[in-house]
Structures are given as C-alpha cells and as structure tokens.
C-alpha cells in the first residue's frame, strides 16, 4: 500500500467511527492515525460529528405526537366526559382540593442547584431562589407565590416557568400550568428535565380535556427510550 493510500480519507474515517472496518483494517488505520497528526485530526472531526449525530438523532423529531385532528371525535367525547368529571370533582372537593398535599407518588423535578441557572457574575433574583427552595421543601403555596413573582431571564426563566407550571398543576390550576408549559422552548431544555416537562404537558393537557394530545404525548414517551428528547 502506498503512503498516499495509507492516510485515512474521510470515507475510511466514517467506516472507523461506524465500527464497520474489520479488526485488521481497524488496527492498521488506528495505529497510523496515532502517529499522523493530519489523519488523527480528521478522525477526531468524524468522532466529534458522531456525537452531533447522537445529540440530533431524530428520536427527538420522529416521535412527534400524532396530529391532533386524528382523534378529534375521541377528543370531543373525552372532553365532555372530562368536563362532567371535573364538575363532579369540583362540587365534591372544592375548595379543599386547592392546597391539598401532593400524593406520595408525586414525581418532583430535580431542583436546580444554586448558581447553575445564571451566568458567572450574575445574581439570581432572591424570589427565584426562595421559589426553588419552597419547591424543594414541597411548600406549594410559597413556591407558587415566589416563582410567580420572581424575575429571571434565559435559562433561569425557562426553569422558573417549568417549576411554576408543576406547582400550578399540583395546586389544581391546569389552565395556568398549560399556558406556562406551552410557552417553553422544548429544544432548549436540559436533558435532565426535558422528558419530565413533556410529562407535565401531557398531564396539563389531559386535565384541560385535550385527551387526544395528552395520549399522543404519553405514547411518544412510552415508545421512545428514556434518553430521547421529545418535541411536543
């Protein structure tokens, strides 16, 4: 093999990254790359691109919920049933339900740690800190009050809306929760809470009678692996 052939071209780098080359080819190519800066640089670009591919894998795109028009009639029936059920529930339990304690099975979002939501040198609004603290203590009334009044921007604002939405849901205000959850940019959520946010959206939609949409999201969650983000 000539020296020119020995260098790793882009096609061969792709074979290596995809682990398609047999052991003999792989060992030869990698031992060459370990000594050839140009080939090593090229291989690194391909490995790096494979991480881009993983991050943008269409699990996020292709598990799009089904069209809302598909289940329109089912949605209407479910909506009527949900409305009737809501009337019964409201009649029987209101106002005791407003501040009821969350059930032990409530799934809580991981609380953001201090300093992770703002840029270096910036300070977080004390009301936001208090709101997250209240959420961590499961003090829903305080969390609602503080997160609702807090001022934030960028990632902190996204977090504020998400946690406030959960609080609103737990306080039986799905309409407010849904508005907050619909305002989120789901492409911008950290992976740690991305799917939780979609679960909350499904809960809020269901509570608001949009059962078909909620079902669709729940199916997308059930069908996709835990690491796959879902774009509602």
């Amino acid at each position, binding site marked *: 093999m000539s020296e020119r052939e020995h260098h790793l*071209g882009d096609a061969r780098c792709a074979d290596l990254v995809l682990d398609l080359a047999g052991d003999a080819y792989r060992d030869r190519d990698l031992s060459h790359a370990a000594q050839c800066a140009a080939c090593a640089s090229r291989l690194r670009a*391909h490995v*790096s691109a494979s*991480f881009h591919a993983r991050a943008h894998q269409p699990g996020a795109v292709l598990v799009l919920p089904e069209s809302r028009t598909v289940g329109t009639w089912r949605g209407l029936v479910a909506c009527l049933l949900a409305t009737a059920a809501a009337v019964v529930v409201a009649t029987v339990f209101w106002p005791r339900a407003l501040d009821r304690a969350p059930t032990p099975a409530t799934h809580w979002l991981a609380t953001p740690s201090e300093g992770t939501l703002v840029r270096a040198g910036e300070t977080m609004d004390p009301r936001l800190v208090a709101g997250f603290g209240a959420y961590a203590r499961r003090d829903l009334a305080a969390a609602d009050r503080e997160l609702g009044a807090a001022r934030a921007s960028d990632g902190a604002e996204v977090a504020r809306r998400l946690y406030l939405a959960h609080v609103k849901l737990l306080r039986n205000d799905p309409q407010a929760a849904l508005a907050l959850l619909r305002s989120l940019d789901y492409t911008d959520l950290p992976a740690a809470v991305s799917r939780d946010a979609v679960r909350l959206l499904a809960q809020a939609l269901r509570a608001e009678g949009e059962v078909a949409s909620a079902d669709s999201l729940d199916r997308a969650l059930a069908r996709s692996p835990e*690491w796959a*983000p879902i774009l509602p």
Partner: protein
Amino acid sequence: MKCERPAAPLWACRIAPAIQALLCARGAERDPARAELWRLLHAALYASLRAQAGRVAPVSREDLEDIASTKALELLLQAEGKLWSVEGYSPLEVAAFLARVARNGLVDLARRRGREAPPPEDADAWERAVTEAGPAESDPLERASTEEFFSAFKECVAALTPRARKVWMQRVVLDRPSREAAGALGLTVANVDVMAQRAREALTACMAAKGHRVAGLDPRMFVLLWTQSDPASWTGAETGTE
C-alpha cells in the same frame, strides 16, 4: 451486494440493508432501526461533505454537521416513506448519490450566504492539503515519549470526577459546543463552561506534577484516548460521582 475495499466505503454497503430493516420493522423495533439508518446516513454524509467542502465554499465544522443532519433527516424520512430506495444500485452508486446530496447541501449553503467560492483548478488540491497538513508521522523517539506522556495523561484524566471527565471529553477532546454538551449531560451551559475550565486546570496541574507540560490536546493523543477507552463513557446523563 459486493463491498470490497477499497472499491466502495463500507458504509455504502450497509445503507440498503438498513433501509430494508427499517421498512420491515414493526412497533418498538422501528426506533433502533431508525437510529441505525440515521447513524449511517449522518456519518456517510459528513464524510462526503468533508471531502468536498473546500471545493465548494468555505464552511465551518458546524456547517458540515448541520448539513449532514438536515440531509440525513431528509433521506431518512424519504426512505421511511418509500420515496427513496437504493435497491438495485451498487455501493459505489450509493456513495456517489450521497456525494451529490452532500454537494447540493454545500451549494445551497453557499448560495444562501451569497459567497460561493469557485472550485480549485486541481480537484484534489483540498483533499491533499488536508491530508498533508500538520506534522509528518512521528519518529520512534517521539513515539516513546508520547507513550510516557499518554500514560501520565490517562492517570490524570482518570483522577477527574466522572462528571468532569464527561464534560472535558465533550468540550475539550471533541470540541462539542457547550450547549450540546449541556443537553447531553443534563447540565446548564454555564455549568459546562465552568466544569470544562476547572477540568483543564486540574489536568494541567496533575500533568505538571508528573513533569509534563500540557499545551492543548495533540490530535494523536485523541486517537489513543479514543481507542483505549469506551466512547460510551464520554457521554450520558448519569453525572454522579464514583
């Protein structure tokens, strides 16, 4: 389908079976089949894009990755909708088709930016320039000192916490954007930046204690790291400490 090296890249031989597997998959089998075809198409398109990039227009690595993602998704959807098939085509023809798709993506980008560059007179000039860039292959003495350096380096990398190691791998070794690393690891962008900087400092200090100076990561070191560790450990959302 015959796929002998060096006639066609191996990935070109895998695309037809991957499309077939996706079309035959039912229910929960579809996700892994889709993921496999996506992985193949993305890597193949990225290779085709890189091989042609300099001939069409000046582009960044991010441009190439974005075009690869866009075109891979288009082809994936077309394959899934039975609008694109490679049935009856040889691997070389499949590779040539993907090269055309890649070139079209580059031309579209150049047009959008309104600064299309004329191709060089010698079509192989860019490829040769890339191949021959950087220092030549190392001599045995350099290799010996590299191995000693690498041994120390591995120890220092191992001393990082798992979370810091993943951040360092993604931000420094692979040069992934902070936002993407943050998404993959379940961290905020600010957190990633701080952790990457601290990891750099910790590695520099650790290597200094072993008598080595670290001035950036030599790409050859990357190859050793990549071949001697499990790339799966470079990512993932489990960020606890060991």
